[in-house]
């Protein structure tokens, strides 16, 4: 990555990133992309979030689901129900699940990610963000 040399360049980069142009350029169909975000702050890690991430990746490979991006994120604030995971299916609102252990991972992948069927354990969003 070469250095950004002006505010104009920074603004252009932001615009590109917001439209996820990069992903389009790589050929992935962004409309069908599933996003899985796992809270990976100290509280999450202490509750086993690293294992949860591995379990997600393994299970999705097993089920042959390829149009998915699994990333880590910071504390979502639901420290009482770690590990927490946010899943955004294409064209749907994000859904946060709590207490995601191995069996919950299997349930989420086979029911929610594959079939769009909600499962128990949703954590309702409790805040606005600017």
């Amino acid at each position, binding site marked *: *990555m*070469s*250095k*950004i*040399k*002006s*505010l104009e*360049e*920074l*603004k252009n*980069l*932001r615009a590109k*990133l*917001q439209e996820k142009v990069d992903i389009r350029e790589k050929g992935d169909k962004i409309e069908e992309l599933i996003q899985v*975000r796992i*809270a990976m*702050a*100290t*509280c999450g*890690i202490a509750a086993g979030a690293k294992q949860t991430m591995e379990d997600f990746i393994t299970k999705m490979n097993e089920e042959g689901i390829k149009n998915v991006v699994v*990333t*880590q*994120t*910071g*504390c*979502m*604030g*639901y*420290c*009482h*129900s770690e590990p927490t995971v*946010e899943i955004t299916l294409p064209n749907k609102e994000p859904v946060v699940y*709590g*207490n995601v252990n191995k069996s919950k991972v299997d349930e989420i992948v086979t*029911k929610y990610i594959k*079939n*769009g*069927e*909600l*499962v*128990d*354990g*949703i*954590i*309702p969003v*409790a*805040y*606005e*963000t*600017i």
Partner: protein
Amino acid sequence: MANYKMHVLVCGGTGCLSSGSGQLADNLKEVLKEKGLENEVQVLKTGCFGFCEKGPIVKILPDNTFYVEVKPEDARIIVDEHLIKGRKIESLLYKVPETKEIISDSKHMDFYKKQMRIALRNCGFVDPENIEEYIGREGYQALGKSITELSSQDVINIIKESGLRGRGGGGFPTGLKWEFTYKNKADQKYVVCNADEGDPGAFMDRSLLEGDPHSIVEAMAICGYAIGASKGLVYIRAEYPLAIERLQKAIDDAREFGLLGDNILNSDFSFDIEIKFGAGAFVCGEETALIQSMQDNRGEPTTKPPFPAESGYWGKPTNVNNVETFANIPAIINKGASWFKSIGTEKSSGTKVFALAGKVNNVGLVEVPMGTTLREVIFDIGGGIKDGKKFKAVQTGGPSGGCLTVNDLDTPIDFDTLLAKGSMMGSGGMIVMDEDDCMVAVSKFYLEFTVEESCGKCTPCRIGTKRLHEILEKITAGKGTSEDLDLLKSLSTVIKDTALCGLGQTAPNPILSTIEKFWDEYTAHVIDKKCPSGQCTSLLQYVVNPEKCIGCTACARVCPVNCISGKVKEVHFIDQSKCIKCGACQAACKFSAIDKK
């Protein structure tokens, strides 16, 4: 794809469960099965909705109807009227108490607008190790705007007008501090971020650094531009390895992208950041001790004046701000001072992040506008007290703060109101206590901490806190006297007036606050030699209840000190002078004949 047309979300949070939401969910499933709808309507149990006062909560998707105070018997009417006939049940909808207005969608409820994340705006939305995600969410726009369109004084004015006050606990107006440092002329100035976060139970700064480190990097650069500094330092406690790792990556990535280093964005502004580690001392969270520690000296505070803005790191003008204070800066530059001022109270604008911990159901990180009441944070957002126990007190401000009681719950939170009630907002630690917590033991715990952490430089703190702790140990061991209580009060006042730095000056706060609000507990310990909440083991007695004891000898056999006497089939007796209060006898008794008093 699933063929469910509707979803019924039933809150499975602790509060709602204890009001029957489990039974409600079962009933719903049963009625749906009866009507042959089990493949069209799905019943799901969720985590806590937060609106526990009005539980059990039910939310219907996709129409977003929000029902409150739903009883298990209401399952049938929900299925018949709402799910089958499509008619909302008015009696179950939420009515605003003051106006009686009916609100059917939670998006329009004030309750759900209670939390507002400004400092935490990116936490949970970006991968903290990916600078591009930060840039995609307005990242570094504020820095760009500052160095290309604004002058140093412009930036300072924006921060001054916003009313931002230090979030580390001091509450000093940030814009003013920046201006002082700006006005002091020197060949080198420094921007310091205080990431020491020593308060027990506080994790706001840790979460910010782990979840959105770029916001701190950007803010420090903006500060450097404003005050005329080209060097920044982050003093972070070594006990936060993940935060250190992510912050270092953020700094490295920012350099790579040309957002730190020489000639940022082709301007003549250069700024770089270095990380310095703490070594386990709470006192190094105090800015002058922090500066000493960064200079490789023992972390001991120095007298103020001179303030760091005038003479700080290596004697140069230094601006020290807390992590959360910095986290607000990019948002203020991007959205404007008047936007920030419109949130919160008149004298304390913006929001505050609290680390809600202790005996609440929903422990975690909450960010609320200033002016939100304690009741709203603890009972609404926090979901109330665990296990259905009674609220007793909330400790705010860490070892420098005090306790607030049931009478203070409707206090709107800001810098000045909590001070007026005998505590302080501090850096945001909020520890909730219930009926089983002993307030004398709580102040003993905090004194244990401050005795350990006192740097030893000044006599009032070094010796004074030790003496305070000894008296509290005496009291909780059942050996206290009324003279001890008088001494606690007078010694606390002397220490507050004479200690050199904030650690000593505020160390007696937990004692003064609990003595004032829980005087009965102190006198119970001293005069009656009893601990009302049952926590101080030395004051507990295990006593055999003669009406229930059948003389089975189970207790005597397990007693490790053989202090239980009695013949078979006769009431047994515990010798209190030998009893070590281990509780083995009570655990062994199958007739509930041993009481703990």
